[in-house]
C-alpha cells in the first residue's frame, strides 16, 4: 500500500513540474509581445561549455557590451536591440538546433556564431537556407570565406592564410628561414601549416615538422626531434591548452636558448594561463587593446574595463564588431532582411570607433572577410599590468596578408 501512495506522490510531483514547465513555455512568447515595440533580436550561438568556453565567453561579453552601447544611443532603426545567447556546447547537432530555434521560434533577424568552425559552417547552411544574415565572429577555418563562402555569411576574424602570411616575414627577418612546425592533426592545423609553408617557401625557407593529436599533452618526443633539427624558429601551431603545455615544456627543456619560438595565434586568454617563463615568442594578435596612439581605443578600453572589470581581448572585440556591423548595415540598408544587409555590407568600411585601429578596415566584397590590421609582436611576462603581455612590433594590413579573392577559392552565389 505504501508503495502506491509513494508513487502517487511522485505522480503529483511530476504533474506539477510538467505543468510549471509548460506554463513557462506558453508564457514566454506572450510576454514578449506585450512589451510594446518589437525589439531587434540578434541570436548568438557559441560554445559556452566545453574546451572553447573561455574564448566563447569573451565574444559574448563583447557583444553584450555593444548591445548596451547601441541601446543607449537609440538602438537599430529606432528599435531596441535584444541579444539572445544560446550554448552550442561544442556540438554540431546542438548548434544547428539552437540556430533553428532562434530563427523559427524567437524570430531573430541576425545570427552570430560559432567559435567552433565546424559548427559555424553547419549553422551557415541553415542561415543561408532561411535567408538570415550571419556573422561568424571567431571561427577561423578558411573555407567559411573561401571554398564554402555564402552570400549571407560575413566573418570578422582572420583566415589562417592572413595570420600565417603576416607573421612569417617578421620571423624570417629576425631569426632565420629554417623552421620546425608542431601542428595539431585536424583541418585547422593543416590549413595553418600549409599557409605557413607557402609564405615561408616564397622567402626561400626550409622546414620540417610533426603532426600531433589535437589533445596531445606530452611534447617531449617532438621537442627532442626539433632540437636535433636545429631550426631558427619553432612554430607552435597548437591551440588552447595544448599550446600552453607545449610552451611550458619548451621552456622547461631550456630550448629558448637554442631557437626562437613563434606561431600564428597566441590569444590573451591563453597567455594569461601560462606561467611567466612560458609567456614568450612572436605571434599575431587579431586585435590588441594597448594602442595608446589611437584615442578611440583608449576610450573603448577604459569604458570596457569600467563596465566588465576586465581588459578586452581580440575575442571581445570580435563580438563587439559583429553587433555594430549589424547596426551599421541596417542603417545603410534601412532593413534587416538578409539579402539587403548582405548587399549593404559589401566593401563596407568600419568607422574608427568600431574598427578601433588605424587604417581602413572593411569587409571585402568578394569573400565577405573583414580586412583589419594584424598586430605582429612579442609575448612577454606582464610589464605594467597583468594584461600587458604583448608588445606590438609591426602592423600588417589584412589585405596585404590575405591574398586575392581568387586565391581563397570563393565563388559567391547570390540568393534567388
Amino acid at each position, binding site marked *: 500500500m505504501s508503495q502506491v501512495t509513494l508513487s502517487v506522490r511522485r505522480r503529483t510531483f511530476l504533474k506539477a513540474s510538467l505543468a510549471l514547465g509548460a506554463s513557462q513555455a506558453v508564457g514566454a512568447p506572450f510576454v514578449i509581445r506585450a512589451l510594446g515595440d518589437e525589439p531587434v533580436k540578434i541570436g548568438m550561438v557559441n560554445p559556452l561549455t566545453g574546451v572553447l568556453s573561455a574564448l566563447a565567453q569573451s565574444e559574448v561579453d563583447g557583444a553584450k557590451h555593444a548591445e548596451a552601447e547601441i541601446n543607449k544611443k537609440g538602438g537599430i532603426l529606432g528599435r531596441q536591440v535584444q541579444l539572445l545567447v544560446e550554448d552550442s556546447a561544442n556540438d554540431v547537432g546542438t548548434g544547428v538546433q539552437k540556430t533553428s530555434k532562434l530563427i523559427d521560434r524567437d524570430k531573430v533577424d541576425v545570427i552570430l556564431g560559432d567559435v567552433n568552425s565546424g559548427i559555424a559552417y553547419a549553422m551557415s547552411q541553415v542561415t543561408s537556407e532561411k535567408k538570415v544574415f550571419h556573422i561568424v565572429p571567431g571561427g577561423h577555418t578558411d573555407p567559411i570565406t573561401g571554398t564554402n563562402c555564402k552570400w549571407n555569411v560575413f566573418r570578422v576574424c582572420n583566415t589562417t592564410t592572413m595570420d600565417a602570411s603576416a607573421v612569417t616575414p617578421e620571423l624570417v627577418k629576425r631569426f632565420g628561414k629554417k623552421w620546425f612546425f608542431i601542428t595539431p592533426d585536424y583541418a585547422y592545423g593543416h590549413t595553418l601549416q600549409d599557409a605557413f609553408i607557402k609564405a615561408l617557401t616564397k622567402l626561400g625557407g626550409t622546414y620540417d615538422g610533426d*603532426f600531433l593529436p589535437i*589533445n596531445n*599533452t*606530452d611534447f617531449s*618526443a617532438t621537442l627532442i626531434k626539433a*632540437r636535433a633539427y636545429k631550426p631558427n624558429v619553432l612554430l607552435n601551431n597548437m591551440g588552447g*591548452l595544448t599550446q600552453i603545455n607545449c610552451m611550458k615544456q619548451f621552456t*622547461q627543456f631550456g630550448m629558448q636558448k637554442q631557437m626562437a619560438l613563434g606561431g600564428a595565434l597566441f590569444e590573451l586568454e591563453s597567455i594569461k594561463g*601560462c606561467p611567466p617563463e612560458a609567456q614568450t615568442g612572436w605571434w599575431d594578435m587579431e586585435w590588441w587593446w594597448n594602442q595608446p596612439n589611437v584615442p578611440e581605443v583608449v576610450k573603448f578600453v577604459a569604458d570596457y574595463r569600467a563596465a566588465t572589470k576586465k581588459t578586452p581581448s581580440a575575442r571581445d572585440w570580435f563580438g563587439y564588431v559583429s553587433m555594430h556591423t549589424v547596426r551599421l548595415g541596417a542603417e545603410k540598408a534601412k532593413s534587416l532582411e538578409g539579402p539587403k544587409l548582405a548587399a549593404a555590407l559589401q566593401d563596407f568600411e568600419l568607422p574608427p570607433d568600431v574598427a578601433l585601429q588605424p587604417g581602413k578596415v572593411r569587409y571585402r566584397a568578394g569573400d565577405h572577410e573583414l580586412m583589419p590590421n594584424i598586430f605582429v609582436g612579442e609575448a612577454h611576462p606582464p610589464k605594467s599590468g597583468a594584461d600587458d603581455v604583448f608588445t606590438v612590433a609591426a602592423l600588417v594590413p589584412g589585405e596585404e596578408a590575405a591574398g586575392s579573392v581568387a586565391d581563397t577559392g570563393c565563388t559567391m552565389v547570390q540568393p534567388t
Partner: protein
Amino acid sequence: MAQVILFNVTNGLIIGAFYVLMALGLSLILNLSNVINFAHGNFLALGGYLAFTLSPTLGYWGALLISPLLTALIGVVVERLMIRRIYNRDPVYSLLLTFGLAFVMQDAARYIWGPNGLPMGLPDALAQPVTVDLFFITWYRIFMVTIVIVAVIGLFAFLRYTRIGLRIRAGTLDLETVASLGVNVRHLRTFNFAVGCLLAGLSGVLAAGQIGLNPNMGDDLLMPSFIAIIVGGVGSLIGTLFGGLLIGMAAALTTVFYPAASEAVIYAILMIVLLIRPRGLLGEEGMLS
C-alpha cells in the same frame, strides 16, 4: 639513437605511470562495489584544483599532501549520499548516477575556478632538467614517477598486510560471505571508494604540475584508464597495473615513429585483447560476468 631510446622508455614509464594511478583507483571501486565511476576524471580535476587553491597557504608540498585527502573526503560524502543507495541495483543505475555526477562536478569546477586554464606552480628545484644532456628529463618527471611508485607499492602493501586491505580483497571475491562474517560492509565500501578517490586526487595534483588545470582535464585520462582495466583484466589489480604500463609504453613508442597515431595504438591494443583474450591478460574467468 641511444638518447632517443632512453628518452622514449622513460617517457613511456611516465605516461604509463599516470594511466596506472588513475586506473588503479577506478579498478578498486569497480572490483569491490561493481560501480564504474564515470566521475573519476572529475575527482582527478578536483584534486588538482584543490592543490591549486591550497598551495598559496600550504606551499606545494602541503598541497600535495592535503588535497588528495580532501578529495577522498569529498568522495566519502558522495558515496554516502548517493552511491550507497544504488549498490544492489541494476548496473545501469550506477552508471547513470556517476555519469550525472561527472556533469555536475565538471560544471562546478568551471563555475568555481573559471573556464580558463590555470597554471600550477612548481617548486623551482623540480622544474630543472636533470642534466644538460638529458634535458628532456626534468626532476619533476622523476618526482612524478617516484610518487606513483610509492603510491602503488603503498596500495598493494595496504591491501596485502592490513586488515582492511584483506577485507577489501576478500570482498572483491565474495562480498556476501564477508558480510556474514561480521564485517561492516557499508563502511568497507565507503572506505574503498575513498581510497579510489584519493588515488584520483593524487593523480590530479601530479597532472596539474605537468599540464596545468582546466575543467576538462580528467576526460582524456578516463578512457585510457578504462582500457587499462579491460586489457589488464577485470578484477585483477596487478592486471590493471600491467595494462596501464603496457598502453603507456605503446603510446610513447608509437610517438617515435608516427606521432599522430599515439592514441590510436591504445584502441588497437584494446581490440586485439578483446579478440584474442576477452577476459584480459591477467583476468580471471568469471569475474564480474
